[in-house]
């Protein structure tokens, strides 16, 4: 099983993600945003960073990169597609996930660990976790505030597509404290916190591993 990790100009977490996937036994290849195919990968991760400088809107330009065509195809085929932080922003701009990420409520970049509750197992990101499990994960973003039209939010909640929620405090003002969500089929998922940054004891937390392991397990065709 291999995963394609997409690199846009301005992406900066790609090596961290490759390293973390390696820690859960998954091989990963870097794929350039102008490439036309994913090299036969079984799944895709869009990592964190500042694709295109976050200019215009975060993720707005990245969504039009050639690589997003095969990514969209892979998503339509029901294969696992994960967006972390900036990657989540790109997935929303590309319409692969609903809603959008806007500036944090307090208008400052937030870099600190936060508590995240698993609220649904219906995604490639959370299938191996337990509902109610609280994970300590780093949040590192300026535009982490999730917004969407009211009816969209209601629909997400009703169908258990909100898979991760901020627990105890809402650090960035996200609607319904949404920290991560999934597509209807559960194979496309996005989250603002960085699981790869909580994948080794020496870094302070290994709580991200259960999410990475979920993703890894989802790579095997059903």
């Amino acid at each position, binding site marked *: 099983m291999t995963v394609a990790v997409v690199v846009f100009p301005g992406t900066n977490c790609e090596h961290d993600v490759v390293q973390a996937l390696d820690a859960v036994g998954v091989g990963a290849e870097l794929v350039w945003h102008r490439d036309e195919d994913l090299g036969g990968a079984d799944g895709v991760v869009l990592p964190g960073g500042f694709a295109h400088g976050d200019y215009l809107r975060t993720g707005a330009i990245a969504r039009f990169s050639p690589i997003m065509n095969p990514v969209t195809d892979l998503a339509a085929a029901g294969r696992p597609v994960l967006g972390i932080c900036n990657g989540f922003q790109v997935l929303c701009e590309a319409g692969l996930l609903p809603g959008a990420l806007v500036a944090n409520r307090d208008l400052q970049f937030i870099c600190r660990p936060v508590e995240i509750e698993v609220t649904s197992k219906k995604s490639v990101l959370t299938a191996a976790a337990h509902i109610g499990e609280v994970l300590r994960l780093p949040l590192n973003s300026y535009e982490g505030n999730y917004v969407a039209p009211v009816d969209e939010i209601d629909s997400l909640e009703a169908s258990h597509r909100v898979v991760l929620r901020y627990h105890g405090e809402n650090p960035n003002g996200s*609607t319904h404290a949404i920290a991560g969500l999934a597509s209807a089929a559960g194979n496309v998922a996005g989250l603002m916190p960085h699981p790869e940054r909580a994948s080794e004891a020496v870094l302070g937390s290994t709580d991200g591993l259960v999410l990475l392991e979920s993703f890894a397990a989802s790579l095997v065709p059903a």
Partner: protein
Amino acid sequence: MRYRVSISRKEGLSDPEGSTTGTALRDLGFDEVASVAFGRTIVLDVADGTDPGRVDEMCRRLLANPVIEDFSVEEL
């Protein structure tokens, strides 16, 4: 030809820059401020004879995010 595109956040959606700025203005004594909404202005220089529909399309496809933004176009 020149066009001015004005992009604004859809009503009812979170606008932290707007609310923070409103609070800041009132703290400075401008109590009359009821609300502040942030938007963006983009000025486009396009070839003469460009179909206005193309400018509209630019807005819909890239310049504005229809999930969270509205836009208007003004010829200059």
